[in-house]
């Protein structure tokens, strides 16, 4: 299976996506907004590049290592983003739970439209 043309198209789509995401990262205002952009790199871009490797390279060592890298990036990016968001939240407001002044809606089975969250009980 050797498709260099398809592989090159996939790789260039990934590169374009990465550059657009990097520009988006620089243009956002808060760290929480910026956090979202690394998910696209770790999922779409990594997936496209590894798919390109699978299509272009017949070597199984390269294919498997590429797949391992894509899976690692995909799984670890979620964990890392969560940990980072938690750290930023605690750093900014000195607590993790929402306060009563933050106007966060609590959605339950009894109140599917949401009721104001009163803060930690």
């Amino acid at each position: 299976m050797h498709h260099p043309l398809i592989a090159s198209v996939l790789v260039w789509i990934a590169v374009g996506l990465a550059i657009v995401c990097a520009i988006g990262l620089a243009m956002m205002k808060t760290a929480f907004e910026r956090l979202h952009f690394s998910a696209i790199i770790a999922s779409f871009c990594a997936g496209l590049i590894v798919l390109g490797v699978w299509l272009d390279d017949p070597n199984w060592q390269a294919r498997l290592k590429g797949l391992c890298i894509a899976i690692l990036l995909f799984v670890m990016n979620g964990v890392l983003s969560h940990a980072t968001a938690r750290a930023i939240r605690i750093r900014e407001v000195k607590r993790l739970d929402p306060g009563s002044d933050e106007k966060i809606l609590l959605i339950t089975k009894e109140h599917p439209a949401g009721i104001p969250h009163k803060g930690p009980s």
Partner: protein
Amino acid sequence: MKITMNYWLWAALALLGAVAPCLYVCAAKPAEDRLVALEFVSCIVTLQLVLLAEGFHQPAFYDLPLTLALLAFGGGMVFARFLQRWL
């Protein structure tokens, strides 16, 4: 060893364009934004090393992005913890 440019190497070179906005964020924004940009750029550099390994036709070079992906995760977690507690 004579190296001819192929589309993998050109793509690795073009991916440097995605590093520049992160450098700006790391240089000009507060600590939280810097951490996010650092995590972003570690993903970019991992993919860049994959492209270079493929461009040079050296499967052994794939060990480097694999190691970087693992270490970037550990480093990011340590930085996040540090930012939360002490910085």
